Protein backbone atom coordinates (compact mmCIF):
# COMPACT_ATOMS: atom_id res chain seq x y z
CA UNK A 1 0.00 0.00 0.00
CA UNK A 2 1.42 3.36 -0.95
CA UNK A 3 0.85 6.65 0.79
CA UNK A 4 -1.92 7.85 -1.54
CA UNK A 5 -3.83 4.60 -1.14
CA UNK A 6 -3.44 4.84 2.64
CA UNK A 7 -4.87 8.36 2.57
CA UNK A 8 -7.78 7.22 0.46
CA UNK A 9 -8.60 4.36 2.85
CA UNK A 10 -8.15 6.45 5.98
CA UNK A 11 -10.57 9.09 4.76
CA UNK A 12 -13.27 6.59 5.77
CA UNK A 13 -11.76 6.17 9.24
CA UNK A 14 -14.19 7.64 11.71
CA UNK A 15 -12.76 10.53 13.72
CA UNK A 16 -13.96 9.07 17.02
CA UNK A 17 -11.63 6.08 16.56
CA UNK A 18 -14.48 3.56 16.46
CA UNK A 19 -12.80 1.86 13.51
CA UNK A 20 -9.52 1.32 15.32
CA UNK A 21 -9.92 -2.45 15.29
CA UNK A 22 -11.19 -2.69 11.76
CA UNK A 23 -8.79 -4.88 9.74
CA UNK A 24 -9.31 -2.85 6.58
CA UNK A 25 -7.53 0.09 8.20
CA UNK A 26 -4.73 -1.92 9.82
CA UNK A 27 -2.34 -1.76 6.89
CA UNK A 28 -2.89 1.95 6.37
CA UNK A 29 -2.46 2.65 10.09
CA UNK A 30 0.76 0.62 10.12
CA UNK A 31 2.04 2.89 7.37
CA UNK A 32 1.04 5.92 9.40
CA UNK A 33 3.17 4.66 12.28
CA UNK A 34 6.22 4.66 10.02
CA UNK A 35 5.62 7.82 8.05
CA UNK A 36 5.70 11.09 9.93
CA UNK A 37 4.16 13.12 7.13
CA UNK A 38 1.31 10.64 6.79
CA UNK A 39 0.84 10.77 10.55
CA UNK A 40 0.48 14.53 10.44
CA UNK A 41 -1.94 14.28 7.56
CA UNK A 42 -4.09 11.80 9.51
CA UNK A 43 -4.08 13.97 12.62
CA UNK A 44 -5.21 16.92 10.55
CA UNK A 45 -7.81 14.87 8.70
CA UNK A 46 -9.26 13.52 11.94
CA UNK A 47 -9.33 16.98 13.49
CA UNK A 48 -11.25 18.34 10.54
CA UNK A 49 -13.63 15.39 10.54
CA UNK A 50 -14.15 15.64 14.29
CA UNK A 51 -14.91 19.33 13.98
CA UNK A 52 -17.48 18.81 11.27
CA UNK A 53 -19.03 15.87 13.10
CA UNK A 54 -19.31 17.95 16.27
CA UNK A 55 -20.98 20.75 14.40
CA UNK A 56 -23.37 18.37 12.68
CA UNK A 57 -24.33 16.91 16.02
CA UNK A 58 -25.49 20.37 17.02
CA UNK A 59 -28.30 20.30 14.49
CA UNK A 60 -31.32 21.16 16.56
CA UNK A 61 -33.81 18.35 16.93
CA UNK A 62 -37.43 19.57 16.99
CA UNK A 63 -38.53 19.47 20.61
CA UNK A 64 -41.72 17.62 19.88
CA UNK A 65 -40.26 15.06 17.47
CA UNK A 66 -39.91 12.28 20.00
CA UNK A 67 -43.48 12.69 21.20
CA UNK A 68 -44.69 13.03 17.63
CA UNK A 69 -43.22 9.64 16.77
CA UNK A 70 -45.17 7.97 19.55
CA UNK A 71 -48.31 9.95 18.78
CA UNK A 72 -48.21 8.89 15.16
CA UNK A 73 -47.95 5.28 16.23
CA UNK A 74 -50.70 5.58 18.78
CA UNK A 75 -52.79 7.29 16.16
CA UNK A 76 -52.22 4.46 13.77
CA UNK A 77 -53.46 1.92 16.28
CA UNK A 78 -56.03 3.72 18.43
CA UNK A 79 -57.69 6.23 16.16
CA UNK A 80 -58.97 4.00 13.42
CA UNK A 81 -61.71 2.42 15.54
CA UNK A 82 -63.31 5.77 16.26
CA UNK A 83 -62.38 7.15 12.87
CA UNK A 84 -63.75 4.09 11.11
CA UNK A 85 -66.96 4.29 13.09
CA UNK A 86 -67.44 7.90 11.99
CA UNK A 87 -66.66 6.98 8.46
CA UNK A 88 -68.98 4.02 8.42
CA UNK A 89 -71.73 6.20 9.81
CA UNK A 90 -71.09 8.87 7.20
CA UNK A 91 -70.97 6.40 4.37
CA UNK A 92 -74.21 4.81 5.50
CA UNK A 93 -75.91 8.12 4.78
CA UNK A 94 -74.71 8.15 1.21
CA UNK A 95 -77.54 7.22 -1.11
CA UNK A 96 -76.84 5.77 -4.54
CA UNK A 97 -77.95 8.01 -7.38
CA UNK A 98 -81.38 7.39 -8.78
CA UNK A 99 -81.35 5.13 -11.80
CA UNK A 100 -78.09 3.46 -10.86
CA UNK A 101 -79.72 0.05 -10.66
CA UNK A 102 -81.17 0.42 -14.18
CA UNK A 103 -77.80 1.53 -15.51
CA UNK A 104 -76.14 -1.51 -14.00
CA UNK A 105 -78.72 -3.80 -15.54
CA UNK A 106 -78.35 -2.07 -18.91
CA UNK A 107 -74.57 -2.44 -18.73
CA UNK A 108 -74.96 -6.11 -17.94
CA UNK A 109 -77.19 -6.49 -20.94
CA UNK A 110 -74.49 -5.02 -23.17
CA UNK A 111 -71.94 -7.33 -21.61
CA UNK A 112 -74.30 -10.21 -22.20
CA UNK A 113 -74.27 -9.42 -25.93
CA UNK A 114 -70.50 -9.08 -25.96
CA UNK A 115 -70.10 -12.60 -24.65
CA UNK A 116 -72.77 -13.78 -27.10
CA UNK A 117 -75.17 -15.07 -24.58
CA UNK A 118 -77.66 -17.42 -26.17
CA UNK A 119 -80.95 -15.57 -26.31
CA UNK A 120 -83.34 -18.23 -27.46
CA UNK A 121 -84.05 -19.44 -23.95
CA UNK A 122 -86.28 -17.40 -21.80
CA UNK A 123 -84.93 -16.95 -18.34
CA UNK A 124 -86.43 -15.65 -15.17
CA UNK A 125 -84.92 -12.49 -13.76
CA UNK A 126 -83.02 -14.37 -11.09
CA UNK A 127 -81.52 -16.82 -13.57
CA UNK A 128 -80.58 -13.98 -15.91
CA UNK A 129 -78.92 -12.16 -13.05
CA UNK A 130 -77.03 -15.29 -12.09
CA UNK A 131 -75.89 -15.84 -15.64
CA UNK A 132 -74.88 -12.28 -16.30
CA UNK A 133 -73.08 -12.05 -13.01
CA UNK A 134 -71.20 -15.20 -13.91
CA UNK A 135 -70.56 -13.83 -17.37
CA UNK A 136 -69.19 -10.64 -15.89
CA UNK A 137 -66.91 -12.65 -13.66
CA UNK A 138 -65.79 -14.75 -16.58
CA UNK A 139 -65.07 -11.60 -18.55
CA UNK A 140 -63.10 -10.29 -15.60
CA UNK A 141 -61.09 -13.47 -15.45
CA UNK A 142 -60.64 -13.40 -19.20
CA UNK A 143 -59.30 -9.85 -18.98
CA UNK A 144 -56.95 -10.95 -16.26
CA UNK A 145 -55.92 -13.95 -18.30
CA UNK A 146 -55.51 -11.78 -21.37
CA UNK A 147 -53.24 -9.38 -19.60
CA UNK A 148 -51.23 -11.71 -17.50
CA UNK A 149 -51.74 -15.26 -18.48
CA UNK A 150 -52.90 -15.33 -22.06
CA UNK A 151 -51.16 -12.12 -23.11
CA UNK A 152 -52.40 -9.68 -25.69
CA UNK A 153 -49.18 -8.78 -27.46
CA UNK A 154 -46.28 -10.80 -28.79
CA UNK A 155 -44.09 -9.78 -25.92
CA UNK A 156 -46.77 -8.38 -23.68
CA UNK A 157 -45.29 -9.61 -20.46
CA UNK A 158 -41.66 -8.84 -21.10
CA UNK A 159 -41.97 -5.55 -19.24
CA UNK A 160 -44.27 -6.93 -16.57
CA UNK A 161 -42.73 -6.82 -13.14
CA UNK A 162 -42.82 -9.65 -10.61
CA UNK A 163 -44.97 -7.40 -8.41
CA UNK A 164 -47.62 -7.14 -11.11
CA UNK A 165 -47.61 -10.88 -11.55
CA UNK A 166 -47.96 -11.23 -7.80
CA UNK A 167 -51.07 -9.04 -7.75
CA UNK A 168 -52.53 -10.90 -10.69
CA UNK A 169 -51.96 -14.30 -9.17
CA UNK A 170 -53.67 -13.15 -5.99
CA UNK A 171 -56.58 -11.83 -8.04
CA UNK A 172 -56.84 -15.19 -9.75
CA UNK A 173 -56.70 -17.14 -6.49
CA UNK A 174 -59.30 -14.93 -4.88
CA UNK A 175 -61.71 -15.07 -7.77
CA UNK A 176 -64.85 -16.97 -6.79
CA UNK A 177 -64.58 -18.76 -10.12
CA UNK A 178 -61.11 -20.04 -9.54
CA UNK A 179 -60.76 -23.81 -9.70
CA UNK A 180 -57.99 -26.36 -9.99
CA UNK A 181 -57.66 -28.61 -13.03
CA UNK A 182 -56.69 -31.56 -10.89
CA UNK A 183 -57.23 -32.18 -7.20
CA UNK A 184 -55.03 -34.78 -5.60
CA UNK A 185 -53.23 -34.94 -2.27
CA UNK A 186 -50.19 -36.78 -3.64
CA UNK A 187 -47.46 -34.53 -4.96
CA UNK A 188 -46.28 -37.27 -7.32
CA UNK A 189 -49.72 -37.47 -8.90
CA UNK A 190 -49.72 -33.72 -9.48
CA UNK A 191 -46.30 -33.79 -11.10
CA UNK A 192 -47.28 -36.78 -13.27
CA UNK A 193 -50.32 -34.92 -14.51
CA UNK A 194 -48.28 -31.78 -15.24
CA UNK A 195 -45.56 -33.81 -16.98
CA UNK A 196 -48.12 -35.56 -19.16
CA UNK A 197 -49.20 -32.17 -20.36
CA UNK A 198 -45.61 -30.98 -20.79
CA UNK A 199 -46.17 -28.39 -18.09
CA UNK A 200 -43.30 -27.28 -15.87
CA UNK A 201 -42.68 -28.92 -12.53
CA UNK A 202 -40.26 -27.53 -9.97
CA UNK A 203 -36.76 -29.07 -10.20
CA UNK A 204 -36.11 -27.91 -6.65
CA UNK A 205 -38.53 -27.11 -3.86
CA UNK A 206 -38.04 -25.28 -0.59
CA UNK A 207 -37.34 -27.91 2.09
CA UNK A 208 -40.58 -27.27 3.90
CA UNK A 209 -42.71 -28.01 0.84
CA UNK A 210 -41.09 -31.31 -0.16
CA UNK A 211 -42.98 -33.57 2.20
CA UNK A 212 -46.29 -31.76 2.21
CA UNK A 213 -49.54 -33.10 0.96
CA UNK A 214 -50.69 -31.80 -2.34
CA UNK A 215 -53.98 -30.05 -2.93
CA UNK A 216 -54.07 -29.76 -6.69
CA UNK A 217 -52.65 -28.12 -9.76
CA UNK A 218 -53.65 -26.01 -12.72
CA UNK A 219 -52.47 -25.31 -16.23
CA UNK A 220 -51.65 -21.65 -16.87
CA UNK A 221 -51.19 -20.32 -20.37
CA UNK A 222 -49.03 -17.26 -20.37
CA UNK A 223 -48.60 -14.58 -22.98
CA UNK A 224 -49.28 -14.53 -26.68
CA UNK A 225 -46.48 -17.03 -27.16
CA UNK A 226 -48.70 -19.35 -25.16
CA UNK A 227 -45.90 -20.05 -22.79
CA UNK A 228 -46.96 -22.82 -20.46
CA UNK A 229 -47.00 -22.32 -16.74
CA UNK A 230 -48.14 -24.30 -13.73
CA UNK A 231 -49.87 -23.66 -10.47
CA UNK A 232 -49.23 -26.27 -7.80
CA UNK A 233 -50.90 -26.14 -4.40
CA UNK A 234 -49.65 -27.76 -1.19
CA UNK A 235 -51.14 -27.93 2.27
CA UNK A 236 -49.58 -27.64 5.72
CA UNK A 237 -51.40 -27.23 9.03
CA UNK A 238 -54.58 -26.31 7.24
CA UNK A 239 -52.89 -23.59 5.20
CA UNK A 240 -52.44 -23.77 1.46
CA UNK A 241 -49.23 -22.77 -0.31
CA UNK A 242 -49.60 -21.80 -3.97
CA UNK A 243 -46.58 -22.15 -6.21
CA UNK A 244 -46.76 -20.50 -9.63
CA UNK A 245 -44.10 -21.36 -12.19
CA UNK A 246 -43.69 -19.49 -15.43
CA UNK A 247 -40.98 -19.20 -18.02
CA UNK A 248 -38.39 -16.61 -17.11
CA UNK A 249 -38.51 -14.97 -20.54
CA UNK A 250 -42.12 -13.85 -20.21
CA UNK A 251 -41.50 -11.18 -17.59
CA UNK A 252 -38.86 -8.77 -16.38
CA UNK A 253 -37.13 -11.16 -14.02
CA UNK A 254 -33.68 -9.58 -13.92
CA UNK A 255 -33.90 -8.54 -10.29
CA UNK A 256 -35.23 -11.84 -9.02
CA UNK A 257 -33.02 -13.81 -6.67
CA UNK A 258 -32.21 -17.50 -6.49
CA UNK A 259 -34.06 -19.94 -4.30
CA UNK A 260 -31.35 -19.75 -1.64
CA UNK A 261 -32.23 -16.07 -1.17
CA UNK A 262 -35.98 -16.50 -1.28
CA UNK A 263 -36.23 -16.80 2.49
CA UNK A 264 -34.73 -13.38 3.05
CA UNK A 265 -36.85 -12.01 0.21
CA UNK A 266 -39.78 -13.36 2.12
CA UNK A 267 -38.82 -11.40 5.22
CA UNK A 268 -38.63 -8.25 3.17
CA UNK A 269 -41.76 -8.90 1.22
CA UNK A 270 -44.70 -6.62 1.56
CA UNK A 271 -47.69 -8.34 2.90
CA UNK A 272 -50.30 -7.99 0.23
CA UNK A 273 -53.52 -7.81 2.21
CA UNK A 274 -53.68 -11.24 3.75
CA UNK A 275 -51.12 -12.76 1.41
CA UNK A 276 -47.45 -13.29 2.06
CA UNK A 277 -45.44 -13.70 -1.11
CA UNK A 278 -41.92 -14.61 -2.02
CA UNK A 279 -40.34 -15.26 -5.37
CA UNK A 280 -37.20 -16.58 -6.97
CA UNK A 281 -35.88 -17.57 -10.38
CA UNK A 282 -33.53 -20.05 -11.95
CA UNK A 283 -32.12 -20.05 -15.46
CA UNK A 284 -35.39 -21.17 -17.02
CA UNK A 285 -38.30 -20.33 -14.74
CA UNK A 286 -39.59 -17.80 -12.27
CA UNK A 287 -41.40 -18.98 -9.15
CA UNK A 288 -43.95 -17.24 -6.96
CA UNK A 289 -44.88 -18.78 -3.64
CA UNK A 290 -47.96 -17.33 -1.99
CA UNK A 291 -49.98 -18.13 1.07
CA UNK A 292 -52.46 -16.42 3.34
CA UNK A 293 -50.20 -16.01 6.35
CA UNK A 294 -47.55 -13.82 7.92
CA UNK A 295 -44.33 -13.49 5.90
CA UNK A 296 -42.36 -15.06 8.75
CA UNK A 297 -44.56 -18.17 8.54
CA UNK A 298 -43.95 -18.37 4.83
CA UNK A 299 -40.23 -18.05 5.47
CA UNK A 300 -40.40 -21.19 7.59
CA UNK A 301 -40.81 -23.41 4.57
CA UNK A 302 -37.25 -22.61 3.47
Amino acid at each position, binding site marked *: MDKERAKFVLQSFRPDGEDGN*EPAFAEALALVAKDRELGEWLADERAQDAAFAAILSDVEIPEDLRNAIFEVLEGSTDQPAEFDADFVGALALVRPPEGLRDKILAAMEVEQKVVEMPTHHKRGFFKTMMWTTSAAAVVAIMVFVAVFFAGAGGNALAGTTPKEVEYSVIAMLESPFFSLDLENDRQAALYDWLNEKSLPTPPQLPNGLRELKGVGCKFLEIGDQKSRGSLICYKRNGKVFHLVMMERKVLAADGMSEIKDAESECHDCDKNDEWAVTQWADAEYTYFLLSKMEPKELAEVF
Partner: protein
Amino acid sequence: MDEFEDLVDQYYQALYRFGFSLAKNPDRAADLVQQTFVIWAQKGHQLKDRSKAKTWLFTTLYREHLGNARRSQRHPETEISEVEHELPNNEEDSGRKLDAQRAVALLGELDETFRAPLTLFYLQQHSYKEIAEVLDVPIGTVMSRISRGKDQLRKKMTSEPSSAPTRIVDFQPDNFRKTNG
Protein backbone atom coordinates in the same frame (compact mmCIF):
# COMPACT_ATOMS: atom_id res chain seq x y z
CA MET B 1 -38.51 0.65 28.75
CA ASP B 2 -39.72 -1.49 25.89
CA GLU B 3 -37.66 -2.25 22.83
CA PHE B 4 -39.47 0.21 20.63
CA GLU B 5 -39.08 3.15 22.97
CA ASP B 6 -35.46 2.24 23.47
CA LEU B 7 -34.93 2.18 19.73
CA VAL B 8 -36.61 5.55 19.28
CA ASP B 9 -34.48 7.11 21.99
CA GLN B 10 -31.31 5.65 20.59
CA TYR B 11 -31.72 6.70 16.99
CA TYR B 12 -34.34 9.34 16.38
CA GLN B 13 -31.91 12.23 16.64
CA ALA B 14 -29.33 10.72 14.29
CA LEU B 15 -32.11 9.72 11.93
CA TYR B 16 -33.42 13.27 11.97
CA ARG B 17 -29.99 14.68 11.16
CA PHE B 18 -29.59 12.20 8.35
CA GLY B 19 -33.09 12.97 7.07
CA PHE B 20 -32.44 16.70 7.32
CA SER B 21 -29.30 16.41 5.26
CA LEU B 22 -31.16 14.39 2.62
CA ALA B 23 -34.42 16.30 2.47
CA LYS B 24 -32.95 19.74 3.25
CA ASN B 25 -36.11 20.62 5.10
CA PRO B 26 -36.90 20.20 8.82
CA ASP B 27 -40.54 19.21 8.33
CA ARG B 28 -39.71 16.61 5.74
CA ALA B 29 -36.90 15.32 7.92
CA ALA B 30 -39.34 14.91 10.81
CA ASP B 31 -41.82 13.18 8.48
CA LEU B 32 -39.10 10.82 7.32
CA VAL B 33 -38.24 9.90 10.90
CA GLN B 34 -41.86 9.34 11.83
CA GLN B 35 -42.50 7.29 8.73
CA THR B 36 -39.40 5.21 9.43
CA PHE B 37 -40.66 4.29 12.88
CA VAL B 38 -44.16 3.61 11.59
CA ILE B 39 -42.64 1.13 9.14
CA TRP B 40 -40.60 -0.35 11.96
CA ALA B 41 -43.79 -0.78 14.01
CA GLN B 42 -45.39 -2.60 11.08
CA LYS B 43 -42.49 -4.69 9.84
CA GLY B 44 -39.74 -4.53 12.41
CA HIS B 45 -40.80 -7.86 13.88
CA GLN B 46 -39.69 -9.50 10.63
CA LEU B 47 -36.10 -8.59 11.36
CA LYS B 48 -34.59 -11.71 12.90
CA ASP B 49 -31.21 -10.23 13.74
CA ARG B 50 -32.07 -7.42 16.15
CA SER B 51 -28.51 -6.14 16.06
CA LYS B 52 -29.29 -4.96 12.54
CA ALA B 53 -32.03 -2.62 13.76
CA LYS B 54 -29.87 0.48 13.40
CA THR B 55 -28.91 -0.33 9.82
CA TRP B 56 -32.51 -1.27 9.09
CA LEU B 57 -33.77 2.11 10.33
CA PHE B 58 -31.26 4.17 8.36
CA THR B 59 -31.82 2.04 5.25
CA THR B 60 -35.57 2.51 5.58
CA LEU B 61 -35.28 6.25 6.01
CA TYR B 62 -32.98 6.47 3.00
CA ARG B 63 -35.39 4.43 0.86
CA GLU B 64 -38.31 6.54 1.98
CA HIS B 65 -36.38 9.64 1.00
CA LEU B 66 -35.59 8.19 -2.42
CA GLY B 67 -39.24 7.24 -2.86
CA ASN B 68 -40.34 10.76 -1.91
CA ALA B 69 -37.79 12.24 -4.29
CA ARG B 70 -39.07 10.08 -7.12
CA ARG B 71 -42.66 11.01 -6.35
CA SER B 72 -41.89 14.71 -6.18
CA GLN B 73 -40.13 14.47 -9.54
CA ARG B 74 -43.29 13.01 -11.00
CA HIS B 75 -45.54 15.45 -9.17
CA PRO B 76 -43.43 18.51 -8.45
CA GLU B 77 -44.69 20.58 -5.59
CA THR B 78 -43.63 24.10 -4.82
CA GLU B 79 -40.03 25.00 -5.33
CA ILE B 80 -37.92 23.85 -2.44
CA SER B 81 -36.54 26.91 -0.73
CA GLU B 82 -32.97 27.24 0.23
CA VAL B 83 -32.37 25.34 3.39
CA GLU B 84 -31.39 28.37 5.41
CA HIS B 85 -34.78 29.99 4.93
CA GLU B 86 -36.50 26.91 6.24
CA LEU B 87 -34.33 26.32 9.22
CA PRO B 88 -35.56 27.50 12.60
CA ASN B 89 -34.20 30.97 13.05
CA ASN B 90 -34.45 32.00 16.66
CA GLU B 91 -33.01 35.31 17.68
CA GLU B 92 -31.06 33.70 20.46
CA ASP B 93 -29.29 31.36 18.06
CA SER B 94 -25.74 31.10 19.13
CA GLY B 95 -22.87 31.07 16.73
CA ARG B 96 -22.58 27.35 17.33
CA LYS B 97 -26.15 26.73 16.18
CA LEU B 98 -25.49 28.75 13.07
CA ASP B 99 -22.55 26.49 12.40
CA ALA B 100 -24.82 23.47 12.50
CA GLN B 101 -27.18 25.11 10.05
CA ARG B 102 -24.33 25.94 7.74
CA ALA B 103 -22.97 22.40 8.03
CA VAL B 104 -26.28 20.95 6.92
CA ALA B 105 -26.58 23.56 4.19
CA LEU B 106 -23.13 22.68 2.90
CA LEU B 107 -23.95 18.99 2.91
CA GLY B 108 -27.13 19.85 1.06
CA GLU B 109 -25.11 21.61 -1.61
CA LEU B 110 -23.12 18.48 -2.37
CA ASP B 111 -23.99 16.19 -5.22
CA GLU B 112 -26.71 13.77 -4.15
CA THR B 113 -24.24 10.90 -4.63
CA PHE B 114 -21.95 12.18 -1.89
CA ARG B 115 -24.45 13.65 0.52
CA ALA B 116 -25.81 10.47 2.06
CA PRO B 117 -22.50 8.62 2.61
CA LEU B 118 -20.78 11.71 3.92
CA THR B 119 -23.59 12.56 6.32
CA LEU B 120 -23.61 9.02 7.65
CA PHE B 121 -19.83 9.20 8.04
CA TYR B 122 -20.02 12.43 10.02
CA LEU B 123 -22.85 11.15 12.18
CA GLN B 124 -20.26 8.56 13.25
CA GLN B 125 -22.85 5.94 13.99
CA HIS B 126 -21.89 3.71 11.09
CA SER B 127 -18.73 2.08 9.89
CA TYR B 128 -18.01 2.32 6.18
CA LYS B 129 -19.30 -1.26 5.86
CA GLU B 130 -22.60 -0.33 7.47
CA ILE B 131 -22.85 2.73 5.25
CA ALA B 132 -22.42 0.43 2.26
CA GLU B 133 -25.25 -1.70 3.63
CA VAL B 134 -27.55 1.27 4.26
CA LEU B 135 -27.00 2.72 0.81
CA ASP B 136 -26.82 -0.67 -0.88
CA VAL B 137 -23.55 0.09 -2.69
CA PRO B 138 -20.20 -1.72 -2.64
CA ILE B 139 -17.73 -0.92 0.13
CA GLY B 140 -15.20 0.51 -2.35
CA THR B 141 -17.84 2.87 -3.65
CA VAL B 142 -18.53 4.15 -0.15
CA MET B 143 -14.84 4.86 0.43
CA SER B 144 -14.62 6.61 -2.88
CA ARG B 145 -17.72 8.69 -2.23
CA ILE B 146 -16.56 9.69 1.22
CA SER B 147 -13.20 10.72 -0.17
CA ARG B 148 -14.61 12.67 -3.09
CA GLY B 149 -17.41 14.06 -0.97
CA LYS B 150 -14.91 15.47 1.50
CA ASP B 151 -13.00 17.08 -1.34
CA GLN B 152 -16.16 18.67 -2.64
CA LEU B 153 -17.20 19.82 0.82
CA ARG B 154 -13.87 21.43 1.57
CA LYS B 155 -13.77 23.15 -1.79
CA LYS B 156 -17.17 24.64 -1.08
CA MET B 157 -16.02 25.80 2.33
CA THR B 158 -12.95 27.54 1.02
CA SER B 159 -14.36 28.87 -2.22
CA GLU B 160 -17.45 30.50 -0.78
CA PRO B 161 -16.28 32.66 2.10
CA SER B 162 -19.27 34.96 1.84
CA SER B 163 -21.79 32.14 2.10
CA ALA B 164 -19.67 30.24 4.56
CA PRO B 165 -19.05 32.73 7.31
CA THR B 166 -16.93 30.25 9.16
CA ARG B 167 -14.01 30.93 6.81
CA ILE B 168 -12.58 27.55 7.55
CA VAL B 169 -9.27 27.88 5.83
CA ASP B 170 -7.56 25.20 7.79
CA PHE B 171 -10.71 23.85 9.34
CA GLN B 172 -9.07 23.37 12.69
CA PRO B 173 -11.71 22.96 15.35
CA ASP B 174 -10.33 25.78 17.48
CA ASN B 175 -10.17 28.25 14.64
CA PHE B 176 -13.61 27.22 13.57
CA ARG B 177 -15.24 27.87 16.89
CA LYS B 178 -13.37 31.10 17.53
CA THR B 179 -14.47 32.46 14.19
CA ASN B 180 -18.07 31.81 15.00
CA GLY B 181 -18.12 32.17 18.70
